[in-house]
């Protein structure tokens, strides 16, 4: 209770020392309280309240309490939260810092719905809590009733009704008479709280001031950083990461006799991807000439053919097409875009390719040719040979004479 209020009340009706604050009626049963409420309500009082150990159904009607406006406050806050989220997402994604993520449009609604949802709920929750405190006039650190001995029973088995002297309809005698007619167990005057200091204690003010100042520090740091021209990293928050205990290439290291941090493999060790001493197999060449035969260690069978087909469809077909005609999806798209820099992929069914040594085809797959990139890093040696095998079958199918087909196949073609 502030000083102004005290002064005001004292001036309009000066009474005994300490100042009368209101009148407290005590009841033994909820029904007695509810009956009293109806009387006070009908008499037109405004500044009064009831206190009970547990919620009582229907007391809000008996007291004539209107529906709270809190839902409207929450609704407005929710819509504000929604609008804030939309503005935030639009400004950050589509305007201030345009950045394509996952191939989605800069301004894409579905990706932002979670943010809309969260901010709507966050604003609603804050408004509900804050609005509830505000509408209930909370926090309310001190009240004259706090010092009333019998009021402590409100947490146990007694029901209280309290009318403040500040009420417009207040009349000491009349109010007392009205409450007495409701048969309370006790009916007592309550005086202003003189024992609780009117001012907030200095320690609390000081603590709040310190917290407020400390809370400003990060903002000060942000402001300084935004205007800084220093090229050094701003804060080494994690020194372990910025200054790691490790040796880098070409650095000295006294642990070893040669004082070098870089180490050569121990003699006699074998790497996991061990070199195979078979030029025919690994390079497709013997004495600098492309081989015309498959390497002896490569087993030609149905499994190898199936593997070759599968790998072909993964790595080759996107450009060369499923049947090797040079009409894969990538080629079609590139042609449609007509960029000018696109070199169309080779039709693998061309005659000269059919006569090309298998070693040369192998070499093209492993090391690339013209615009085609090397696939050595993506396909194992055996897989490359399997693709060459499948390619040979594809080429043969292009020029196969009808006499080589079975009757069933000829029938299917018709």
């Amino acid at each position, binding site marked *: 209770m502030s000083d102004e209020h005290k002064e005001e009340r004292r001036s309009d009706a000066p009474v005994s020392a300490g100042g009368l604050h209101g009148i407290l009626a005590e009841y033994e049963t909820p029904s007695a309280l509810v009956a009293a409420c109806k009387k006070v309500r009908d008499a037109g009082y405004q500044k009064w309240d009831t206190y009970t150990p547990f*919620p009582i*159904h*229907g007391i*809000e009607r008996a007291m004539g309490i209107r*529906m709270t406006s809190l*839902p409207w406050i929450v*609704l407005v806050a929710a819509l504000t939260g929604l609008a804030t989220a939309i503005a935030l997402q639009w400004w950050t994604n589509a305007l201030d810092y345009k950045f394509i993520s*996952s*191939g*989605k449009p800069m301004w894409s609604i*579905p*990706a932002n*719905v*979670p943010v809309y949802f969260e901010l709507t709920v966050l604003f609603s929750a804050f408004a509900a809590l804050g609005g509830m405190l505000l509408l209930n006039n909370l926090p309310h650190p001190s009240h004259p009733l706090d010092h009333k001995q019998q009021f402590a029973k409100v947490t146990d088995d007694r029901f209280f009704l309290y009318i403040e002297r500040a009420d417009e309809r207040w009349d000491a005698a009349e109010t007392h008479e009205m409450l007495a007619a409701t048969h309370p167990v006790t009916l007592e005057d309550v005086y202003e709280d003189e024992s609780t200091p009117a001012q907030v204690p200095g320690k609390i003010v000081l603590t709040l001031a310190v917290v407020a100042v400390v809370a400003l520090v990060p903002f000060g740091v942000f402001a300084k950083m935004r205007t800084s021209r220093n090229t050094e990293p701003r804060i080494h928050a994690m020194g372990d990461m910025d200054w790691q205990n490790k040796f880098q290439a070409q650095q000295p290291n006294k642990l070893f006799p040669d004082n070098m941090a870089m180490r050569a493999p121990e003699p006699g060790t074998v790497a996991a991807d061990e070199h195979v001493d078979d030029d025919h197999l690994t390079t497709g060449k013997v004495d600098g000439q492309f081989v015309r035969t498959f390497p002896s260690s490569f087993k030609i069978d149905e499994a190898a053919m199936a593997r070759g087909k599968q790998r072909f469809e993964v790595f080759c077909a996107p450009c060369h097409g499923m049947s090797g005609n040079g009409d894969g999806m990538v080629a079609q798209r590139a042609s449609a875009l007509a960029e000018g820099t696109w070199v169309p992929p080779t039709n693998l069914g061309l005659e000269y390719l059919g006569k090309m040594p298998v070693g040369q085809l192998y070499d093209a797959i492993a090391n690339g040719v013209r615009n085609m990139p090397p696939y050595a890093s993506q396909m194992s040696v055996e897989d490359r040979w399997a693709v060459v095998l499948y390619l040979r079958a594809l080429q043969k199918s292009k020029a196969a004479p009808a006499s080589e087909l079975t009757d069933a196949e000829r029938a299917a073609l018709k």
Partner: protein
Amino acid sequence: MAKAKEHAKDDGFGDNIKMDALAPKLTQLGGIVGALALVASLAVGFTGGNKSQFMHSYLTAYAWVLSIGLGALWWVTLQHLVNAKWSTVIRRVGELLASTMPLLGLLSLPIVIPTLMGDTTLYLWADSHKMHGDHLLHKKAAYLNTGFFVVRLVIYFGFWSALSLFMFKKSVEQDKTGAPEIRSKLQAVSAPSMLLLALTLTFAAIDFVMTLEPKWYSTIFGVYYFAGAVVSFNSFLALTLMWLQKNGRLARSVTAEHFHDIGKMMFAFTAFWAYIAFSQFMLIWYANIPEETEWYHIRAHGPWGTVSFVMVAVNFVIPFFGLMSRQVKRNKKALAFWAIWILVVHWLDMFWLVKPHMHTESLPFSILDVTCTVAMLGLFIAAAAFNSQKVNLVPVKDPRLDKSLAFENF
């Protein structure tokens, strides 16, 4: 609770809580209309090339009515599980609606029998050759085959029927004996049942609706169907109670407070449905993997794109704001409007789930949609009315009844 001495049939309860002549009347009406509509639908459906239309219309209507029944079963189980007090006076109506489970099992036969005979109108997986010929599908064949389908259906409907009838019978038994331990017994049963219900409902939704597109999958699909089931059931419950009150039953026991709470459930699960629907959509949209996106791609283009757009408005935005107000939930006419609205748009939701499987380019609405829905709804109501013949509409000796009758919202 004001006692009404002028009511001859109040049994000291102060309200009319017996269906009496209303039960056989409703059973006959629902049964005859439903049976006629069902026969007509079957007759039209299996003649003159209407099979695909019939099967899809039937599944749409079936998924809709099944969701109301499952919503009822879930709701009754929930009331026991959490020892709810507000709902005791209206729980019997929920029990009656849930007791239709054996009938709902029978009504699945027009879908199940053709599927067992290898008919792939609805489910491609009914033909094992097609499953084994497909690189993606042959791995799913261990689950998606007709034999295991039947086993699962027997488990689903066996469990649902047993649970709903057990809860109904025990509750009615308490009306007679007044044994208070029935309450704790039902609560004990409801805990494991809730888990089983979650599993069976999820897999049933997957089996009946999701496997229309055997390559498509969504792990949240069961929850999506569940959200629709709860919101539809609460709407159906509100309408049922209003109809009973209009006919002089429960007129004093069920108050605006109970309707207010049912309205809250409708409101909450409208939001929940949207949350789940969007969660399903956003993950698939964001990942943009062809095998997942295909399902939404069909529903995002052409006339189905329009339906999807309308769904956002009618299933979420409009009812969300419509049901937000306290006054609306406490006003019977306003609540009835939204209950009917929700039932209609939830039917549209089922239409949207099932029908693109039939035509991706057009909206295959036909008179069969109407007759199948009328058939299913008529028989559903008839079954609930049939079970209501000899019982009270209120669990009169439930120890929580006093609290339910005196229930007030703050």
